[in-house]
């Protein structure tokens, strides 16, 4: 089995992968919407106008307005930005801490490995949502703390992936060759190991991103996520629930937005895995 194959440009094949393409479309939709919201939204959302509330779709407000008279489309766009930023930074935290830890565990073995892996177990042993609630109780709700709460659980995930990847490389002769060239362990890790597990990490990152979006929605739903004036899909959903009977659009749109973005990043991750992870290619044998 060739676990780590040549860097043939997998993107040429990308156009043939359905899930990659659909995922790319959906994810880009969300990403672009979020990005545009940095500069422009159809309406400002931090100025509330109760007189204008609960309007149906119109040329003014494409998706109508919410209970405070805010433009729902604008809220959704900013919500996209919020959840992607939260999820992205949380993934960043996971990568930043998890990958070095995983690589350390794989190269140092022995006690270091034991310590890293046991810490992983420890984090995994804490039920995620409850810990997130504890963390937000400790630090107060808000975007930053949602990032921390989600990010902490990304660390062991990436540590595991990095360690697994590094271990499956460990028997490979090119690492021995590099050692014969007098290179230090750190250097070998940076030059050989890291680039070779990059695929695995990218795939995992996409998946964690979609999980992060879901987690952010869950936390916001409980009121522990980003706070107003920032819009957040989970909070929109929570606030809309009781108005479902007379204003179903309020609950419908953010729900759809969550489904679309999670679906998008998931499909993207799946597609990337098909393209980059040779374990699947092995089946073509």
């Amino acid at each position, binding site marked *: 089995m060739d676990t780590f194959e040549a860097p043939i440009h997998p993107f040429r094949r990308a156009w043939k992968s359905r*899930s990659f393409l659909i995922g790319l479309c959906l994810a880009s939709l969300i990403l672009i919407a979020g990005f545009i919201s940095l500069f422009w939204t159809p309406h400002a959302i931090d100025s509330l106008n109760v007189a204008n509330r609960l309007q149906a779709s119109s040329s003014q407000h494409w998706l109508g307005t919410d209970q405070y008279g805010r433009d729902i489309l604008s809220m959704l766009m900013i919500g996209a930005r919020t959840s992607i930023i939260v999820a992205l930074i949380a993934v960043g935290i996971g990568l930043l801490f998890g990958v070095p830890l995983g690589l350390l565990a794989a190269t140092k073995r022995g006690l270091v490995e034991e310590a890293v892996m*046991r810490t992983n*177990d*420890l984090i*995994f*042993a*804490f*039920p*995620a*949502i*409850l810990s997130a*609630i*504890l963390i937000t*109780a*400790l630090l107060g709700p808000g975007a930053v703390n949602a990032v921390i709460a989600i990010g902490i659980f990304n660390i062991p995930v990436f540590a595991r992936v990095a360690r697994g990847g590094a271990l499956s490389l460990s028997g490979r002769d090119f690492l021995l060759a590099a050692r014969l060239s007098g290179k230090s362990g750190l250097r070998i890790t940076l030059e050989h190991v890291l680039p070779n597990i990059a695929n695995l990490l990218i795939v995992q990152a996409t998946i964690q991103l*979609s999980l992060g979006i*879901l987690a952010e*929605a*869950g936390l916001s*739903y*409980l009121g522990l996520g980003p706070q107003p004036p920032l819009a957040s899909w*989970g909070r929109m*959903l929570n606030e809309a*629930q009781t108005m*479902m009977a007379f204003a179903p659009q309020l*609950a419908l749109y953010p*729900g759809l937005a*969550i*489904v*679309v973005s*999670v*679906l998008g990043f*998931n*499909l993207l991750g*799946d597609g990337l895995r098909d393209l980059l992870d040779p*374990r699947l290619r*092995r*089946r073509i*044998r």
Partner: protein
Amino acid sequence: MFSYGVLRLLGLSLTLFAASIVVFVVLEVLPGDPAQVMLGISAQEDTLAALREQLGLNAPVLTRYVDWVLGMLQGDFGISYTYNVPVSELIAERAAVSLPLAAIALILSTAIAFPIGIMAARFRGKALDTGIMGLTQVGIALPNFWFAILLVYVFAITLRLLPSGGFPGWDQGVLNGLEALILPAIALALPQAAILARVMRSALIDVMSEDYIRTARAKGLSARVTLWRHGVRNALIPVLTILGLQFSFLVAGTVIIENVFYLPGLGRLIFQAITQRDLITVKSGVMVLVALVVLITFIVDLAYAAVDPRLRRGR
């Protein structure tokens, strides 16, 4: 096998010990005074002090930690600040809801996921597979609280078939209890089933490309028989991991669902206890959950050995 178990158990207790420190420290620095929460805004300083003394909040940190841990080891989880009853009693009551709920959800998700996953694997690349996999993708992306709300809307409010939430207690009849758990269990199970089905499918596809499957086919076994006799059992190994993770997730991570259905479960107990600063309940409750997760991991490990003889040591 035996000494392997002992070794694992030793590691697990170490995890528990570390967890107890983490939990204790976190709650130690958690802002908010339990006494004030209990007595409200009109309470006077001396009343507060009296209550704090009564709750044992004035003892030194180390003493409190040691007392707590020693207590737990003897089955004494402390007395809830708010409810004023032994925490162990509270947890037992709540577990009587959460554990069956998780179990039903798990059974449900397995019952849905296995056939679906196996079907998808059998008809890999065909329309059926594509359809199933598309559905599971949506299933994964669906936030379960959103799904739960929809269920309530349809089955409780519109059709009035099932209760919208709440739990009557098992002493009101097992049937009534089950009835109350159906919707929450479905809300929990479906997204999990989607994940499980995907894992089942990909594990099975992996296994079906193994050489020993070809060997079995070379013996003359038909494709279907090969799948069941040689495929499914070997595919169970990765599936077990996910099952184990899911069960702990289901037991512990149901705060949101328990809120939607106002079920008196473990997750909500802890959630409430945090907001009420019922620290002893939080501490002990979290420890029980952690222990549960750890225990399930252990059981999954043992189950591995049952499925995969390579992991049975000592032979």
